Structure formats: structure tokens, C-alpha cells
């Protein structure tokens, strides 16, 4: 236990130093790279909560990521134009308002999707979550007011009182704090009795039901929580990129989140973050050297999946002598 906290604190400290290291070496784009990887890591970790711990393989997680992002985008759009959403809700550029709004809306969407999808299981669940995500994708692509398939520009990052959010390093630290808080939240969550029940349902749903637990309701709560996490990540991403587009919820994005989880290690806390970081870094680095970067990435993924079981986390554990 002690050791785990030590590792976590060291990693956090190292990540907090990234902007300085980047500045010192002249490789300033690393700050953004790591920032984006952290955000993707959050989205992947939120997926991992239902996928790894709950055994619900959702292939539509990018929908909640995109919805969270679009909440920020749409609120900024109305703030900028001085209008209001549906004539009711005024726009805003305050992060303290936009993030909770994004989490809330993504949670509502997840409640809707989950309530219907969770009636099925297995492959059917995979496909039905994909189906709902596709519907959201087609919906946003046809929203003319919000840029349609061109997406919506957020000219200025949301404001946070007391901080200069236009400073890229500040924005990075804010993202890092959110990522760290989210990690700790998930850690508490999987150890809580709620998390235990979710894991129990994955292992044997019938037994949990026999114990008098309403498994459907618990799975739905988990699904909503997970959707909210993805919404938060999406909202941060739009602040980071200052741009939201339907690409955020394309089905390949859902696949990417899944790959980050599998690559890092299913059902581990740090796995999704590691998976996101590695995939993102490898992709961007390779893309600098060859436009055919997809080929080596594909081969790499294939080798990882064929030679290791349990992703990179399993590899790390093996290397560090079987300890956690």
C-alpha cells in the first residue's frame, strides 16, 4: 500500500514537471502531447470501469466523449454570439459551469443508452451500444447551427477564476489535476462496496441476483458513472483543442478507446492511462517519420496482443517481479 502511494506521488510529480522538462529541452510540444494522452487516458479509464471491472463491452463510448465536448462547444458558441440554447439556456465560457454541465448531459445520455442496451448482453450489447453511438454521430453531423461535420470552434479556452487559462502550461496543469483526481476517484470506486458488487456481477451475475441484488440497476449506475467520466474527458479535450467536431464520436474513436484499454491492461487502474500514453506517443512519433505509420502501428498492436496476455500492465508486473 505504501509503495503504491509512493509510485503515484512520483508519477504525479514527474508529470507535473513535464512543461519544465519540455521547455528545457526545446521540445515544447511534449506538453500538449502528454496533456492529450492524459485526457484520452481518462476517457479510456472511464470505459475500463464498465469494461474491465463490470464486464460490459461498450463499443459506443466515444458518444459520451463527444457529447461532453459538444456541451462546452455549444455553450461557448452561444456565449460568443450572445444568444441562448433553445432560447432558454444562456451560453458561458466559465469552466466551473461548463464542466459540470458536460458531465451532467453525458450522464443523462448514458442513462438513456444504458437503460435500453443493458437489457441485452454479450455481442448484442457491443453492437447496440455501437448503434446508439452511430445515431448520436449522425445527429451531430446534421446540426447546421453547430457547424455540422466541420465542427465548432471554441476561440478561447474556458476561464477558471484566478488562473490564466490562455497559458498552455497552466491549462496542462489543470488537466493533470483533473486526471489525478479522476484516477483517485476510480480507485476509491472500485474498492467501494459498489465497485465490489459491479465486479461480482461480472464474475457471476446470477449469483448476485440470487443474493437479492438488482443487478440491472447496479449495472446501469455503473454505465452512467462511466459515461459521465467520458463526458468530462471530452469537455477537457475541447478546452485543450479549442475545437469540437463529430470526429470525436466516430465509431473508430470508440475503437481507439477500447484499444487503449486492452493495450494497457483490462481491469487495471493505471492500464488505460499507460495504454493511451503509449498508443498516442507511438502514433505521433511514427507519423513524423513515415506517412505509412499505420503499418508499423498495426504490426506492433498485433505483436502485443499475440505475445502478451493482459496488456502492458501484465508486462510491467512481470518485469517488476510479480508485484503490483
Amino acid at each position, binding site marked *: 500500500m505504501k509503495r503504491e502511494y509512493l509510485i503515484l506521488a512520483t508519477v504525479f510529480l514527474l508529470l507535473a514537471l513535464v512543461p519544465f522538462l519540455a521547455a528545457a529541452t526545446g521540445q515544447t510540444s511534449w506538453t500538449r502531447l502528454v496533456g492529450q494522452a492524459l485526457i484520452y487516458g481518462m476517457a479510456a479509464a472511464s470505459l475500463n470501469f464498465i469494461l474491465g471491472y463490470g464486464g460490459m463491452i461498450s463499443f459506443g463510448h466515444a458518444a459520451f466523449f463527444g457529447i461532453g465536448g459538444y456541451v462546452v462547444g455549444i455553450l461557448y458558441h452561444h456565449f460568443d454570439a450572445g444568444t441562448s440554447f433553445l432560447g432558454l439556456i444562456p451560453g458561458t465560457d466559465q469552466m466551473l459551469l461548463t464542466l459540470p454541465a458536460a458531465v451532467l448531459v453525458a450522464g443523462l445520455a448514458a442513462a438513456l443508452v444504458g437503460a435500453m442496451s443493458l437489457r441485452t448482453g454479450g455481442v448484442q450489447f457491443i453492437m447496440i451500444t455501437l448503434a446508439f453511438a452511430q445515431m448520436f454521430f449522425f445527429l451531430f453531423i446534421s446540426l447546421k447551427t453547430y457547424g455540422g461535420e*466541420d*465542427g465548432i470552434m471554441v476561440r478561447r479556452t474556458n476561464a477558471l477564476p484566478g488562473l490564466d487559462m490562455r497559458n498552455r502550461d497552466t491549462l496542462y496543469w489543470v488537466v493533470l489535476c483533473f486526471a489525478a483526481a479522476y484516477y483517485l476517484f476510480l480507485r476509491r470506486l472500485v474498492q467501494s462496496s459498489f465497485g465490489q458488487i459491479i465486479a461480482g456481477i461480472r464474475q457471476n451475475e446470477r449469483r448476485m441476483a440470487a443474493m437479492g441484488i438488482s443487478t440491472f440497476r447496479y449495472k446501469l449506475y455503473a454505465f452512467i458513472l462511466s459515461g459521465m467520466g467520458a463526458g468530462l474527458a471530452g469537455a477537457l479535450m475541447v478546452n485543450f483543442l479549442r475545437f469540437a467536431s463529430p470526429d470525436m464520436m466516430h465509431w473508430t474513436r470508440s475503437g481507439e478507446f477500447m484499444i487503449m484499454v486492452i493495450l494497457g491492461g483490462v481491469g487495471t487502474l493505471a492500464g488505460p492511462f499507460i495504454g493511451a500514453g503509449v498508443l498516442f506517443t507511438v502514433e505521433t512519433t511514427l507519423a513524423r517519420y513515415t506517412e505509412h505509420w499505420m503499418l508499423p502501428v498495426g504490426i506492433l498492436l498485433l505483436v502485443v496482443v499475440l505475445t502478451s496476455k493482459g496488456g502492458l500492465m501484465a508486462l510491467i508486473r512481470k518485469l517488476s517481479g510479480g508485484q503490483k
Partner: protein
Amino acid sequence: MRKLLTSTGILLALMSPAHAEATKIGVITTLSGPAGYLGEQIRDGLTLGLQATGAEFELVVEDDARDPNTGVQVADRMLNEEGIKLLTGIVFSNVSGAVVPEALDAGAIYVSPNAAPSGLAGAKCHPNYFVVSWQNDSLHEASGAAAKKLGYTTAVALAPNYQAGKDAIAGFSREFGGTVTEIYTGVEQSDFAGEMAQIRSVAPQVVFQFHPGGQGIAFLKQYQQAGLLGSVPMVLSEPSYDSVILKAVGPAAVGLTGTTHWNDDFDNEASKALVAEWAAAFPDAPLTTYGQQGYDTGLLIGGALNKVGGEDIAALQAAIKAADFASTRGNFAFGANQHPVQDWYLTSIEADEAGNPKIVTKEKILEAVGDVYAADCKM
């Protein structure tokens, strides 16, 4: 083989001006995926254009995978790490929507060889943002004008159900003025048999359709297979009949009418030079308007670099704004929003000796037109 030639061409381009004072130009473009050939054309055209001016330059080319996230990531590295102050290359509007503000905020200049979303053309225009190609809407207004000029009064207009598609039909209808039956197609649809049946049942005098890339290829093939090619004439705007599409469609394209801002039979020095240089460098790749737009961008940037060098961004901005270069399309000027003011031409697609389609320029249909967004731009 073509691959090898392409890479040698690029290699030469990268190596020859490798002096200390060479200005770095960042090229962010789409090289992977089905649309990869568009980025390839722009990159190769740009290289030839810059070489033609004799400017000292170094290209830093990177793939954006048609993904805004990747585009921003690349832009960030180019702007902040490599200190590049001059960017170009983006093919798709969704990428430019994310990358252009990033570049402008960093004080850099962005010169667009293709994408020109309306969001950046009006009130949000910027002194450091230039478009060499066209504003999206004007492509389709030219087609509307052409259909009107040819004397048609009823039309069916088809486009995918997304923003650019809706803009296309709106632009066409604006200049056409007659009765237009709108049909929207699916965003990822590739079989248009249902639409063919609808066209036949409406029986219009002319069909206008906007489907870039693979969708366009499928549409044209099926239009011919449905037997409509001989009975209902079709007017196309530039992105729907580039020479790559024509090559893939084959004889099914003969007999169509198109509108364009440039064609390879234009009678001016710059255009002839481009056609000759392209044929020498890439004999196997047909030259499209994307290549031409890259070339014009190269001429514009290269000319400006020759005049003021790449150090002083304000001076470079002024030099680019002057647009003092001989464009392959003939008349060229920047409007108030630094988008082109140019002529549009009517072309027809005819069979060459081997029976393959080729584009033949017929007449000028619009002269010195800009776009509707320029009025909103206050710079």
C-alpha cells in the same frame, strides 16, 4: 514506380535548397486513408511551384490523417518547437477549423491550398489567413450559373447530408434560379441506385451532384449504368470530377459538363509550365486541380519569399497579400477577406483518341467573382 518517382521528387526538393537561410514551410496535409491522394497532389504541386520560383525553402511535411486532433498536435510541434512561421497544406475543412486558429494565435501565417470553410471567411477573417483555392460556396455557384446559361430551368440537385453538401445545393440553387428538387444522400453511402430511380421519376432537364472522392466515382458509374447518362445531362462542380475520379470512372464520364477555376488546357505560361513540370516529375499520376492549387500556393509563397525572405512575418504577410504572381488560372486577386477573386469556366468532358475522358475548356461563365462572406470581413 510512381511511388519511387514521387519520393525522389520530394527528396530532391528537400535537398537542393539546403542552405542555412532556407525558410521552413510546414505542410500539414492528409496522406493516409482513402483521401490520401488529395494530400499527395497538394504536396507535390506545392513542391513544384516553389521550385519554379527558385526560392530558398525547406518543406516539413506531415500527415494529419484527416483528424483535427492529429492536425493540431502536428501544428503545435511545427509552430512551437521547430519555429515554423508559415503553414499550408490542409485538405479538409474540419482539420483547418482546428489548426488555423492555432497557427494564427502563434503569430504564424496560414495559406490554404484547398479547404476554405465559411466559418473563417466572414466575420472571423484574419490578416494572416489566406486562401489560394476558392471559397467552398463559389464552386457550386459556378455550376448553378453554368446550368442557367445552358438554358435549363428544372434541376435535381444531390449532395451528402452534411454541411458542405447543404452549402453545395444552396450555392447551386442561388445562381441557377430555376426549380430545384433537392435530394440528400447518406454521409457514407456508396450505392445510389435509389437516387437514380428518383431522378428518373422526376425527369429534370439537368442533374447537379456534389460527391467528392470515392462517392463521386460510384455515383458517376451508377449514373451511366442506370442509363441516365444519355438522357439527362449533368453539371458538376470541380471536386466531383477531378482527373483521378475521371480515370477511375472511365468512359462513363464522357458527355458531362463541369465548372472549374482551372484546367490543364489553359493558355497561359504558368499553366503550361505546370503541365510540363508535372508530366516530367509524375508521369503516372494525373494532374488534378488539387495539384494545381498546390502549385499556385507554391508560386505565391515562393514569390513572396524571394521578395522579403522568411524572417520578417509582417513583411511576408504584406508580400503574400499583394498576390504579385502569375497564377496558372490567369486572373487572380485577393478579396477583402483574402480569399480569391477569380474567373470560372465551363468545361465539357470529351473522349480522347483512346476513348478515355478528358476535360476540355469551353468558355468563361463568371468573371472576377469573390464570395458572399467577404462583406462580413472587417480587417
